């Protein structure tokens, strides 16, 4: 053996970090996204924005405009002032209205009583158009007919022409300024001054400029920082974790004498560095833009709003959030087996980190001891307050400690994930994965077919005759669908018997009893909690309600018939299809949680009502969970039947839900019910 000196974990972490950084620096995409883009983004953005604005202003000022003035009646001083103002406003040619033209139409107040179609034929409009001629606007003024020393003006323009609109705007500005000046002069000339000046109001912000701009920056910096860390760190994390797995170098790395903790730490260090570098570059670029006056930024602009560097040090208070988001990024990418899979994880990380940090937008929330341990919310609040000049030592210490702990926990998880057997043995199970995909696809397809047939066939049948249609749907359509789904299920390498596929075996007595005990609580939950809730959020329209109350059309049936039709039949047939065939396929292709969610979604959709999708999907979730828990659909059948019976009978007022023993004490039965369900399952066949 060669003379190996055992290197310390610190040295190994350093080696790993260096290797990751070196690879990152050679990755053109990473450099582009992490360095070039943030450095150039703001200057480019503001430069081009400024350019465009200048160009637009230039075009406006350079436009040659012709204005016709009809001011023969106007006071000479005023007229001269107006002309001077118009000439100063830009490139304007002023012409007087030719003496031979008839200006009387200009002051005609009679509105043309026209319909939109024949406005062209209106003589008044035609006369004005004629006067406007080739010029862009016509400015008419005269002494007021009411009072000698007043004037009134009118600007005639054509909204279809760009220049004409500009001419209108310029005339208006000049006139307004003139009006304001005249008004002030006249008010001042009054004995005793301006009569309107007996009460004046002004609000004065006593916060220092630093505090004001700090507060402004604090509202924006948390979100901005997290986004930048994510942008810069994403490439590093994808390359270091998902890319390493995809490039098949991880296995090699894991047979080196390096503890998994060191591997996780070295790679995490690279992710954090990349993220922080991007953030720093971006902030510097933004700061430069602000100080050059390219952009108005609270806290960064030169002059009154500038923050002293000492105040900007508060930015360090956000470091714990940066370390945590980099750790989360590493963890999520560490789960991914391929680069592509890793890319899909970026969005959840973004949501997890950014949403809590938005608390800074609520000015009433303070960094309390409780809030400051909340991931991302705490640092964001403390950063905001720090930038605004408020600093509380205890919440800050607690925030640092708690976020250190969160980061450590995430890194521990990452360490365990790196050499987890799930990800390593996956290569051996390619065929299995294909099989799982087939099974999941089969489940979803048949669930879709089921929902569609219920819409198309079931609803027709029930329109024809409600009772018989319902019976036919349940006992005719659903069993056929179940049989077809069962028949076409993909044959796995280890075939599954029908009994096991549909979960038809008997459950343990404890599980069956536990399920039954849930029924009163479930009914109460629906009637007393969910329905009032829904009536506030998504009230069911009266028309839909009447349409949907099956009971109204079925009141002629006897109670046993009703229970058979509305409780027992749906329980058996729907459970066979949804919890038997569909869940049977889905759970062989998906993780249990996903299988549950999918079948619940389909079950909710099958009830063909927007207003009932939430409660039915919720019920589907519970029934699915019962089936998976007890490895049998029987508990689900019992709960479904019982629940339907209670709801239908209560709806028809054949069962009182008020004040009876069952409605008062029944819900408490759920507790022993849940306890029974928690008992271990009977050994499966």
């Amino acid at each position, binding site marked *: *053996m*060669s*003379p*190996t*000196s*055992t*290197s310390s974990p610190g*040295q*190994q972490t350093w*080696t*790993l970090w260096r*290797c990751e950084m*070196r*690879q990152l620096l*050679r*990755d053109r995409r990473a450099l582009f996204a992490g360095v070039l883009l943030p450095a150039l983004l703001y200057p480019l953005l503001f430069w081009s924005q400024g350019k465009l604005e200048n160009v637009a202003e230039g075009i406006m000022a350079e436009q040659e405009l012709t204005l016709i003035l009809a001011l023969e009646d106007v006071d000479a001083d005023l007229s001269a002032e107006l002309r001077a103002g118009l000439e100063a406003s830009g490139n304007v040619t002023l012409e007087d209205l030719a003496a031979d033209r008839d200006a009387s139409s200009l002051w005609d107040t009679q509105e043309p009583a026209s319909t939109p179609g024949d406005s062209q034929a209106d003589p008044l409009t035609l006369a004005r158009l004629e006067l406007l001629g080739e010029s862009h606007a016509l400015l008419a003024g005269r002494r007021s007919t009411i009072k000698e020393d007043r004037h009134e003006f009118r600007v005639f323009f054509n909204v279809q022409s760009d220049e004409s609109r500009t001419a209108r705007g310029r005339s208006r500005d000049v006139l307004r300024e003139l009006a304001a000046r005249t008004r002030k002069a006249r008010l001042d000339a009054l004995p005793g001054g301006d009569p309107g000046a007996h009460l004046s109001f002004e609000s004065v912000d006593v916060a220092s400029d630093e505090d004001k701009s700090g507060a402004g920056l604090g509202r924006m910096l948390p979100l901005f920082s997290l986004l930048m860390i994510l942008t810069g760190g994403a490439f590093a994390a994808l390359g270091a974790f998902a890319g390493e797995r995809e*490039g*098949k*170098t991880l*296995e*090699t790395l*894991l*047979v*080196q*004498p*390096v*503890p998994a903790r060191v591997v996780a730490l070295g790679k995490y260090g690279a992710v954090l560095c990349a993220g922080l570098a991007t953030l720093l570059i971006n902030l510097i670029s933004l700061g430069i833009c602000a100080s050059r006056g390219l952009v108005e930024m609270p806290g960064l602009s030169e002059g009154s709003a500038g923050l002293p560097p000492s105040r900007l040090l508060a930015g360090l208070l956000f470091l714990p959030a940066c370390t945590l988001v980099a750790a989360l990024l590493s963890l999520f990418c560490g789960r991914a087996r391929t680069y592509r899979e890793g890319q899909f994880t970026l969005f959840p990380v973004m949501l997890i980190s950014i949403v809590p940090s938005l608390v800074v937008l609520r000015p009433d929330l303070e960094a309390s001891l409780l809030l400051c341990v909340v991931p991302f919310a705490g640092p964001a609040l403390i950063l905001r307050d720090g930038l605004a000049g408020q600093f509380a030592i205890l919440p800050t210490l607690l925030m640092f400690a708690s976020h250190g702990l969160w980061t450590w926990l995430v890194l521990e998880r990452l360490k365990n994930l790196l*050499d987890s*057997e799930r990800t*390593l*043995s996956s*290569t*051996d*199970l390619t065929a*299995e994965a294909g099989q*799982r995909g087939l099974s999941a696809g089969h489940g979803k397809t048949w669930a879709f077919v089921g929902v569609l047939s219920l819409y198309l066939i079931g609803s027709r049948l029930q329109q024809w005759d409600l009772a018989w249609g319902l019976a036919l749907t349940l006992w005719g359509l659903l069993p056929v669908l179940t049989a077809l789904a069962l028949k076409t299920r993909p044959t796995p390498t*280890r075939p599954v018997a029908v009994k096991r596929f549909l979960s038809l075996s008997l459950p343990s007595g404890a599980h069956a009893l536990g399920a039954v005990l849930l029924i009163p609580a479930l009914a109460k939950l629906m009637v007393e909690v969910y329905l009032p809730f829904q009536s506030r959020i998504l009230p069911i329209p009266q028309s839909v309600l009447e349409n949907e109350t099956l009971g109204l059309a079925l009141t002629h049936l006897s109670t046993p018939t009703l229970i058979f039709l509305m409780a027992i039949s749906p329980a058996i047939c729907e459970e066979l299809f949804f919890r038997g065939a569909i869940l049977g396929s889905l759970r*062989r292709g998906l993780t*249990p949680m996903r299988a549950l969610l999918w079948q619940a979604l389909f079950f909710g959709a099958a009830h063909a009502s927007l207003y009932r999708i939430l409660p039915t999907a919720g019920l589907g979730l519970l029934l699915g969970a019962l089936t998976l828990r007890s490895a049998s659909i029987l508990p689900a059948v019992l709960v479904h039947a019982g629940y339907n019976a209670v709801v239908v009978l209560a709806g028809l007022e054949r069962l009182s839900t008020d004040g009876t023993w069952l409605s008062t004490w029944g819900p408490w039965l759920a507790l022993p019910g849940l306890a029974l369900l928690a008992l271990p399952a009977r050994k*499966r066949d």
Partner: protein
Amino acid sequence: MTMQPLPIRTTNLCKTFDDPKRGVVHAVRDLNLECKEGEIFGLLGPNGAGKTTTLRMLSTILAPTSGEAEVGGVRVSDDPLEVRRRLGFLSGTTGLYPRLTAREILEYFGRLHGLDEAHLQARVEELLDTFTIRPFADGRCESLSTGQRQRVSIARAVLHDPPVLILDEPTTGLDILAASDMIDFIQSRKEAGTCVLFSTHILSEAERLCDRIGVIDQGRLLAVGSLEELRVQTGKEWLEDVFRALVEQAGSEAPADIPPAN
């Protein structure tokens, strides 16, 4: 000379995967294996026989469910880091970092192994010559051919001069020339006194290289011995026939694979 511990030894090694969808999968069952110093041992079996799982347990990537695996007298469960120091691991699918050069990769792994800097440089230079990597040592690995990459991978595996080499289907995915390079390399290790354990499903490789062969199927080691011994045991001449005979024999002795208890 005192009794040296065997380079590789497994006792009743078992690995079961608990797959929620398939139930319990017995990948390796009661595997007993011993490899001696300077010996080339071939683990021969069809796909899914448990070869990779065995080698992964020996190289500490997977933890055994029960039983023990030892490398140079060190149990993998006791001190996995020490075991990793003693072995070089290489599989046919091993990748290289595309944006690093061959030299950088060798230096990187050398540092992870804790070679001191002076020794590391000397060793890297030596390996660049041994495996004729020098002409392309400073180009990024993404631009290398499969054969060149394979040579870099081999150099990486023997960088710390391990007394035990574990090669998982080392020729899989290689072209003819690269594969024969690999075979030459394995043979050269024997002269260096290294214990080589490699898995393959290519019979000619096993026939040509191995001092002893272990035939593995469905997680069980069916027979161990030199090619000659296996021929005698089964009465067949060609390794293909030997292999088939052993599998059939095992099939008739043991009941067919029982679906796992669930």
